[in-house]
């Protein structure tokens, strides 16, 4: 990507190395290691405790619960990037959805109407773009990116415009978009899927 085509917002995160497919895989592996670092010690404790004394079974169960809950909390935080923000008044919402509709094809419009997320195929994977972030789906993994339009009107942008801001930025420089956005979570698709609102799970299923 030449400097001319790079996302202008990269200047505000100049210290970050530009995201590439290879760097993304590294970040994903780091998340996997982090998850293992949380899960494995608790599972080991659970096994050892029960092996030492069956009376320690409640402690083992508590340890297993921790092993389950900690990754779930991370996934929950990641899934919040697709949350819907407070809608604007009816007229701005309608106008913004009209503009967004002009930017995407019929299938994407239909999926957005059902789920609030717009699918967009990229080089790093398939994106599901929401109002305050995006999911990047590749193979069996989902990466959750927190990013939004800065809004001088104090958060009054209608929902379609919020999505359109992110979509246009993503389309102009996908790797720059992933550099500017904050990676909130990366992990198994099933783990993120169960933390999404029900209506948004269909979007994940559609692009998987």
């Amino acid at each position, binding site marked *: 990507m030449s400097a001319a*085509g790079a996302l202008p917002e990269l200047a505000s995160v100049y210290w970050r190395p530009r995201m590439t497919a290879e760097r993304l895989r590294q970040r994903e592996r780091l998340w996997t290691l982090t998850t293992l670092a949380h899960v494995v010690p608790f599972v080991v404790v659970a096994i050892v405790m029960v092996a030492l004394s069956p009376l320690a079974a409640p402690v083992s169960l508590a340890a297993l619960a921790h092993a389950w809950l900690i990754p779930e909390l991370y996934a929950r935080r990641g899934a919040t990037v697709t949350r819907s923000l407070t809608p604007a008044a009816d007229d701005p919402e309608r106008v913004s959805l009209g*503009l967004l509709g002009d930017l995407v094809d019929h299938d994407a419009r239909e999926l957005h109407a059902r789920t609030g997320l717009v699918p967009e195929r990229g080089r790093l994977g398939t994106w599901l773009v929401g109002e305050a972030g995006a999911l990047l789906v590749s193979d069996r993994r989902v990466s959750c990116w927190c990013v939004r339009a800065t809004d001088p009107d104090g958060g009054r942008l209608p929902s379609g415009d919020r999505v359109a801001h992110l979509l246009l*930025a993503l389309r102009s420089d996908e790797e720059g978009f992933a550099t500017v956005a904050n990676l909130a979570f990366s992990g198994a698709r099933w783990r993120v899927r169960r933390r999404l609102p029900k209506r948004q799970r269909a979007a994940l299923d559609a692009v998987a």
Partner: protein
Amino acid sequence: MSRLIRMDGSGHTTLAEWTADDPAAVEAAVAAFREELEQGSIAMVTRGPGHAEHVRELPLDEQLVIMRRPIAGG
């Protein structure tokens, strides 16, 4: 007829409309474009399905130029 629009709280606002053979309209569109850039907006044009481009000068031959706000990690 080409249009320059800004995504804002109203959905979007049309800032200028022009045709290449109307110098006054072009001049007004360029002025509106520059004013938006000075206020921190970023100009985008779509380049077919799945593609968009950031532009620094008003592309007079484009049908639609969209001004957006910068994005930032949340």
